[in-house]
């Protein structure tokens, strides 16, 4: 064998090895199908698609609840985490089977339009206003949430908005309206991202933002911001679960959606919600009443 052919063979070997590695990757992945282990019950259509808000996903609540749900019922839940507005749109297009959202007015409109089959209260927490430690707008002195918002606007401090029609965004817009402030201008930044992303952004800009308490507790230790205003009854944040009307599309997993809704509002589901804690703090309070 000549030197040059040996070199060519070597190079071919290298190319082949690299290709094999790329192709073998998928096979390894097949071998280690790390999805949830097979459960005792086996439903006919075992995948349920849940469209939900980033707050339930980012806090880790779903990571805590869903394995238990799968253990109990055999259903696997595919979570698409978007804002409440987008989640409702997914439901409207029949691209989700069940929704877990928090914007009561939008939810009622959704039900009234016939997009949903059943709606139930699930849990609540509250919104808080977070901001830099110096609190340049002095919102800690506010008498209520509306005044806090007025103070932010008046101080010229930056406010980061979700800007994605999520439940938090809807709440924020209603507060601006009550405050008589038109949220626009250099100080008002619409991010168009999830809650955690927005908190990180606000931190980087030393800005204020409105967040649900759950997400805040989950992100808190990675942030230099802190709660600057809390406690107004206006900031009450209720979550609802809605099964999408199965008449919209035959592909909707109605049985799975109903199972999820029933489970979440069952004594077991409600108890698990109450048990979910971060750093010893409860994030959500079960609220289903028959």
């Amino acid at each position, binding site marked *: 064998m000549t030197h040059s052919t040996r070199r*060519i063979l070597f*190079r*071919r070997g*290298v*190319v082949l090895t*690299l*290709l094999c*590695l*790329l*192709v073998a*990757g*998928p096979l*390894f*992945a*097949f071998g*280690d199908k*790390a*999805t*949830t282990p097979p459960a005792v019950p086996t439903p006919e259509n075992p995948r349920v*698609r849940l469209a939900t808000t980033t707050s339930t996903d*980012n806090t880790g609540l779903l*990571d805590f609840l869903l394995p238990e749900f799968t253990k109990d019922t055999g259903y696997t839940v*595919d*979570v*698409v*985490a978007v804002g409440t507005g987008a989640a409702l749109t997914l439901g409207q*297009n*029949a*691209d989700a089977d069940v929704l877990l959202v928090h914007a009561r007015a939008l939810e009622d409109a959704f039900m009234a339009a016939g997009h949903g089959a059943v709606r139930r209260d699930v849990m609540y927490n509250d919104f808080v206003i977070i901001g830099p430690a110096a609190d340049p707008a002095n919102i800690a002195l506010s008498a209520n949430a509306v005044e806090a918002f007025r103070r932010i606007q008046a101080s010229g401090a930056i406010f980061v908005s979700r800007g994605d029609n999520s439940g938090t965004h809807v709440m924020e817009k209603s507060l601006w309206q009550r405050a008589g402030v038109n949220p626009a201008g250099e100080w008002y930044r619409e991010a168009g*991202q*999830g809650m*955690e*992303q927005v*908190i*990180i952004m606000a*931190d980087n800009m030393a800005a204020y933002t409105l967040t649900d308490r759950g997400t805040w507790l989950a*992100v808190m230790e*990675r*942030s230099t911001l802190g709660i600057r205003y809390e406690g107004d009854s206006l900031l009450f944040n209720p979550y609802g679960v809605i099964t999408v009307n199965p008449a*919209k*599309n*035959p*592909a*909707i997993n109605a049985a799975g959606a109903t199972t999820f809704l029933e489970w979440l509002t069952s004594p077991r589901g409600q108890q698990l919600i109450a048990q979910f804690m971060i750093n010893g703090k409860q994030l959500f309070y079960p609220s289903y009443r028959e």
Partner: protein
Amino acid sequence: MGALRHSLELLFSGDREIWWTIGTTLQFSFWSTVLAIVPGVPAGAALFLGRFRGRRALAATVNAIMSVPTVVIGLFVYSFLSRSGPLGGLGWLYAPAGVIAGQSILAFPLVIAMTYTGLQKLDPRYHETLLTLGAGRWRRLLGILKEGRFVMLQTVLAALGRVSGEVGVSMMLGGNIRWYTRTITTTIALEAGKGQFERAVALGVVLLAIALIINMASHLAVRDAA
């Protein structure tokens, strides 16, 4: 620097989710590349061999489609795969099949264009020799692809690189569902946005390694061809 070390430790600490994500990404990339290559290479070769009117215009169109942003392709495919869209019955949206379909559509024009331009760079004497020896259309196609096998290898690698590194299609059609459609790029987008950079950096390193492996293989293929 400590953060980077921590990220790499994450990779080798047996974190199952990270390796699952890497495996899933490779799996998606592999299948979407296969699905783009199977019709794309013959289409590119046909474009090269064909002697029909408007061939150049078609080649230019393919080149133009290649630069359509991934999110536009994602949006386009989304409108078909949504349950309220024409192909909703397939149930591919927010499922691996949707990601693979979108990524192969993304890679398809790339494969055609790379095959076409690659064959153009191939010595024209090969094609003329096949023609003068009386090879029929299919024989010529096979002969050209055989002589241009390094071109083909490069095309495959480019397609792999494109689909493994894109985020628009995977995000829109896969929905970034954990243990189901979450890929390296969608995880990076998610984790970086949440400020959890360690996981993002670890996966960024893996993505970089994949890109490097692909480029190295492509480079060796060119050298072998010369």
